[in-house]
């Protein structure tokens, strides 16, 4: 009996050759990549440092954690949320025109190809570079962080928006034509309601990601919890690192749980 099921499984359209080819490429690349990594076994120093780090992180600095001034973990987290929130909102707004200009069903081929290329460029430039550019505009601090996040959000958000736009049910436009609706009414009542739920869901998802990525901003002085975290790490204050990380991890887990609930509700009604 089991042979029969096995036979049936083997009868499925076989992708053997594709998998074989993929396997070959992966193996070749693996061998090539290994050349870059020097597996210098961590010397005593490394192991000891690792021990210290773990010990430090596991015994967090409670004073920093339960500190409610503008130097404490709570305020820093709040500032990070604000940066990620504003960055997401502005990024989402900026993404709307980009998304429409990237949609094959809306604009002609040359336009969407050019916009797509532009978005790939925007997406690929590391956020640190934007951070440095924006620090010149606004001076160091959270303002620069917001500007950076607005720009870095565009890449992913507009790409996901395009899928929603391409998915629009055009039947309703026909029905509204038959009702005698104007173009404005067709957009306002036929298209926007179809887009808004999925757009919001994507935006919430991006907020989640921005919150995670906000740490990087600290590297270039663009505000948020990143700077104190990296500063503490560079000066080997692992207890402080521990308290900041705990705050960050808990915050992100909570936000993720809430955002999953919200998104499920938005999409399924």
């Amino acid at each position, binding site marked *: 009996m089991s042979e029969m099921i096995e036979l049936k499984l083997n009868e499925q359209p076989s992708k053997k050759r594709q998998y074989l080819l993929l396997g070959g490429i992966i193996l070749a690349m693996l061998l090539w990549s290994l050349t870059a990594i020097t597996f210098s076994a961590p010397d005593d120093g490394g192991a000891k440092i690792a021990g210290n780090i773990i010990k430090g992180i596991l015994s967090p600095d409670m004073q920093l954690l339960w500190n409610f001034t503008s130097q404490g973990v709570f305020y820093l987290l709040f500032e990070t949320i604000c940066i990620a929130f504003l960055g997401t909102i502005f990024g989402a707004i900026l993404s709307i025109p980009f998304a429409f200009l990237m949609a094959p069903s809306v604009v002609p081929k040359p336009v969407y190809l050019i916009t797509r290329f532009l978005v790939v460029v925007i997406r690929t430039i590391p956020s640190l570079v934007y951070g440095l550019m924006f620090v010149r505009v606004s001076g160091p601090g959270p303002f620069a962080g917001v500007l950076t996040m607005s720009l870095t959000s565009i890449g992913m958000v507009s790409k996901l928006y395009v899928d929603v736009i391409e998915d629009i*049910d055009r*039947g*309703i436009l*026909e*029905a*509204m*034509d*038959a*009702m*005698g*609706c*104007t173009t*404005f*009414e067709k957009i*306002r*009542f*036929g298209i926007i*309601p*179809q887009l*808004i*739920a999925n757009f919001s869901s994507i935006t919430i998802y991006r907020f989640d990601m921005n919150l995670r990525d906000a740490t990087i901003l600290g590297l270039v002085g663009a505000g948020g919890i990143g700077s104190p975290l990296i500063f503490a790490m560079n000066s080997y204050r692992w207890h402080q690192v521990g308290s900041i990380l705990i705050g960050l991890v808990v915050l992100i887990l909570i936000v993720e749980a809430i955002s999953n609930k919200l998104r499920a509700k938005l999409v399924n*009604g």
Partner: protein
Amino acid sequence: MIKFENVSKIYPNGHVGLKNVDLQIEQGEFVAIIGLSGAGKSTLLRCVNKMHDISSGKLTVNGVNVTQLKGKEIRRFRSKIGMIFQSFNLITRTTVLGNVLVSLVPELSWWRRLLGVYPATAKIAGLKALDNVGILDKAYTRVDQLSGGQQQRVALARTLVGDPDIILADEPVAALDPVTAKIVMDDFQRINREMNISILLNIHHVDLAVAYADRIVGIRQGEIVFDGPTSAVTQEIIDEIYQGHGSSSIKGSLEPVAAEVVVDA
């Protein structure tokens, strides 16, 4: 009253959609249009509310010469003619009531249109229409959570709320199971009788057409090959409409009752 006078429709690619159609439908009639796929049923329906332009002939709807309408006039004209589609064509992710009220949008003031805020009178009209098709309790449910039959009734309520004189239905029950199809057809019949709305309905189920319509119009290759009261429809006529040769091998079970049967083929 809808009046086709020698109407032809030639698509831009040269395909003849309608050929010399003469047809007159009085207010309050329930007409089923039958014919093979590609015969021109949808084309006929879509000419009535100017979703398609006719190429020659004259088409008048309630005394209005349809050919001469333009821009804003077309939109105002269309708002008095309801249209129902096979695929329902509702706004997904929107409540039932929200879908029904869209019909009233052209009548709202500009700020209401912008914000999508409907006045209470509009909401009551919408709920009344929903009550009329028996799905009042679903008013605040999202349409994507309804069954196909319920969705088609939302579409029906959407046309009713605009207080139409005519409803054009393009295969409204093709996507529904037989039982649900009957329920929806019952709705059409009731609306036709109680509200004196003319109904033009394309349909592939000949049995449903015969059971519900007052009058049957048969189309073949863009031409009307049969036009008569339902009681006059025989198996031969149906074979004629669908196969194109009068002397069918299958002897029909239906016998002609009325005398005024028009068969021109």
